């Protein structure tokens, strides 16, 4: 069981123009920096990207937007990216906005073999347009479908060559659900460890969901909102 590949370039082999990708992360936290850089370098275009956010102008998915590699975004919140907003309002970029919980669930459900499910989120709003409505316990719900992707690209803290992954802090976010949903799932990690080093009781993503894994390099881990307090008062 050896899913190790050398680097991001090797990991993204097979990703072609027009494919659908899922990319983990929340804001710039826990995003697959190495793979995004490799996608930008190779100029693969016409992509549909499923990701909670769209990065900022010069980092994260913003790098692919700058180079017009993305045809369509499926996201819940895209407020931090001026170039994104420009492309969307001008019609160059197709955007499907999805409630954040429905987005996470639609990834999870795809990975879990549940093609459709009912959720109350979005009932009575634009999101519900064209969707089946059904009442349960007197409360209206809409039918949402699983989201699938040709490739899912996730970022973890540690992993082994079986594909087992462990995330750190809130960098976990969308990564586990997306790891389940890719036809092929690529994991980039900060550190590759030997099988057995990760405690089997505390693995966040079991290796079965991961097809390729590599140790990334030069993580920038940019902080969007650096908020701190002073040590003066204890």
């Amino acid at each position, binding site marked *: 069981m050896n899913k190790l590949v050398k680097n991001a370039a090797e990991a993204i082999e097979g990703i072609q123009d027009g494919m659908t990708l899922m990319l983990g992360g929340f804001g710039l936290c826990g995003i697959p920096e190495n793979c995004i850089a490799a996608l930008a370098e190779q100029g693969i275009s016409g992509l549909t990207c499923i990701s909670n956010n769209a990065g900022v102008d010069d980092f994260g998915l913003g790098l692919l937007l700058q180079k017009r590699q993305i045809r369509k975004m499926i996201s819940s919140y895209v407020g*931090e990216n001026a170039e994104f907003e420009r492309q969307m309002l001008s019609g160059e970029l197709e955007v499907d906005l999805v409630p954040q*919980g429905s987005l*996470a669930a639609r990834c999870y459900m795809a990975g879990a073999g549940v093609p459709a499910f009912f959720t109350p*989120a979005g009932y009575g709003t634009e999101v519900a347009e064209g969707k089946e409505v059904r009442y349960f316990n007197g409360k209206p719900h809409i039918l949402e479908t699983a989201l699938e992707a040709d490739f899912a690209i996730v970022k973890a803290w540690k992993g082994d060559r079986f594909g087992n992954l462990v995330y750190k802090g809130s960098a976990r*976010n969308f990564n586990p659900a997306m790891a389940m949903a890719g036809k092929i799932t690529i994991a980039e990690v900060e550190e590759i460890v030997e099988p057995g080093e990760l405690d089997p009781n505390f693995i966040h993503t079991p290796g079965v969901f991961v097809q390729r894994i590599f140790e990334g390099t030069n993580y920038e881990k940019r902080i969007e*909102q650096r*908020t701190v307090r002073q040590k003066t008062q204890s």
Partner: protein
Amino acid sequence: MLDKKGIAQRIAQELQDGWYVNLGIGIPTLVANYVPEGLSVEFQSENGILGMGPFPYEGEEDADMINAGKQTVTLLPGASIFDSATSFAMIRGGHIQLTVLGAMEVADNGDIANWKIPGKMVKGMGGAMDLVASAENIIVAMMHTNKRGQSKLLRQCSLPLTGVKCVKRVVTNLAVMDITPQGFKLIERAPGVSVDEIKSATEGRLVIEGDIPEMQL
């Protein structure tokens, strides 16, 4: 009249011991600063944290530890981390006792709009639609009127909705109001604000019964 901090302070009075609370971005975030002494509440951040603490000390920021507003935060003892699917399982499953969020408009039937101005601002709904569709107890924190002086408490929302008939209580710089079948029911006036001022700043149906007490902050 209250400022934003005052609104947060008033909302903090709603907290009960043992509650799990989700605070939206903006005024709601400030509520965490006014938790009454002796109450134990846990703050949930929908990107996957329960038990959020204050901002980190300078130099101790961790890029891997942010809240839903993308701000660096810390954890308190008893905190837990989980993924987005689990986070919204908590929210959708009704495990969060209080949700506080901002709004552009609230209608007197409890409809709320806070995610989109067609052709202008299209940032997305984030987790707001899941929160308002799921929570039993939703309090909106906002200014009573917009920058042009127009009421944000309406007969009907004009902007695309975030959720229908879901808001339970609204706390503004002028008043505390509950959503009832008859419309906004005035519960409290902000310090120094008259019932007439509230009336004239409210476009939606306003129910005024008996004497309306002033808030105690």
